[in-house]
């Protein structure tokens, strides 16, 4: 068969094997953005789960701990819940607003790629927003945990600064790695399509 015959073969394909029209969604996830949205939803609930676990840890096993210690940690965890909810509400709003399949193909792919990139930036900011909370929690733990010998100013400063440096770097790397593992393949796929259309 040569390429000119294809048009005739194409026009000959008038079989009635097409499924019935239905405007319901199948709930199967086959679009990259929907996959990301589903992963985000799972991440949201696991983060909330971790924070609830954090509340439980603060209030149950250390019942004898000073009220101030538990109160400060609770306030911090509660603030983290607010930050998590804020970021995830942004993520979900982003997915609701984007990806119009009505755009011209090139624009639609570019838009999708841009949104992925924006999402990545949100994601890294989200992870880095935990740094001040973790730092405060560290300070509270250092201040309240009984030590056999009180820590010197130098020890306190080096502990906090080194944990801050490692924490910042670690969270940044973790965010990038996590994003690449979970979402990288979709981003790469769209990038390749844009390049293919542009070159």
């Amino acid at each position: 068969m040569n390429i000119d015959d294809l048009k005739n073969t194409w026009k000959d394909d008038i079989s009635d094997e097409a499924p019935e029209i239905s405007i319901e969604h199948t709930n199967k996830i086959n679009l990259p953005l929907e996959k990301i949205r589903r992963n985000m939803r799972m991440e949201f609930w696991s983060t909330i789960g971790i924070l609830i676990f954090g509340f439980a840890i603060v209030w149950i096993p250390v019942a004898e701990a000073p009220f101030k210690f538990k109160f400060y940690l609770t306030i911090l965890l509660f603030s983290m819940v607010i930050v998590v909810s804020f970021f995830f509400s942004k993520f979900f709003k982003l997915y609701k607003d984007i990806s119009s399949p009505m755009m011209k193909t090139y624009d639609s792919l570019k838009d999708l790629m841009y949104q992925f990139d924006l999402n990545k930036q949100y994601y890294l900011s989200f992870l880095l927003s935990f740094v001040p909370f973790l730092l405060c929690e560290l300070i509270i733990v250092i201040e309240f945990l009984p030590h056999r010998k009180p820590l010197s100013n130098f020890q306190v400063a080096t502990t906090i600064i080194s944990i801050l440096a490692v924490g910042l770097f670690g969270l940044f790397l973790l965010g990038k790695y996590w994003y690449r593992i979970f979402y990288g393949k979709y981003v790469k796929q769209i990038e390749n399509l844009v390049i293919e259309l542009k070159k």
Partner: protein
Amino acid sequence: MTSIEQEFVHKIEKHKGIIFKISKMYMDDQDDRKDLFQEITYQVWKAYSSFRGESEFSTWLYRIALNTAIVFLKSEKRRSFIGNEDFTDYKIVQDEYDLEKEEKLSAMYKAINQLNPIDKAFIFYYLEDFSGKEIADQMGISEGNVRVKMNRAKNKLKDILNSK
């Protein structure tokens, strides 16, 4: 069903054959084709309230269908089976003419399936007799670029067909 839903179903019913042909171009598995068909229908329905009639309904629909098909992901489970082209649904019939037709169709979709998603879109517009200007408008690239890409896609397809 509301009147707008009825209107939509009535309108899209006429085009369901072409939507399924797009699904066959993009997916080699029967279940994936049905999923893609359903996804396209759903995406068109979601966008339907924004259809202003500035272009023909079919042109508007093809754009959404191809944009959806280009980024559509095969089912994870089915994707793990390499080379699972399911062309068995082309019915083998006794009538010699039909058998020849089915074989040609099977060969055509098998060949098209080997192209990348962008080339498939160009081949679709070629098969549907779209002009360079119309394709440029649908794809959002220049007419010159369309010519280059169309030739490239057709050459790739030719090579695949000739290698059989």
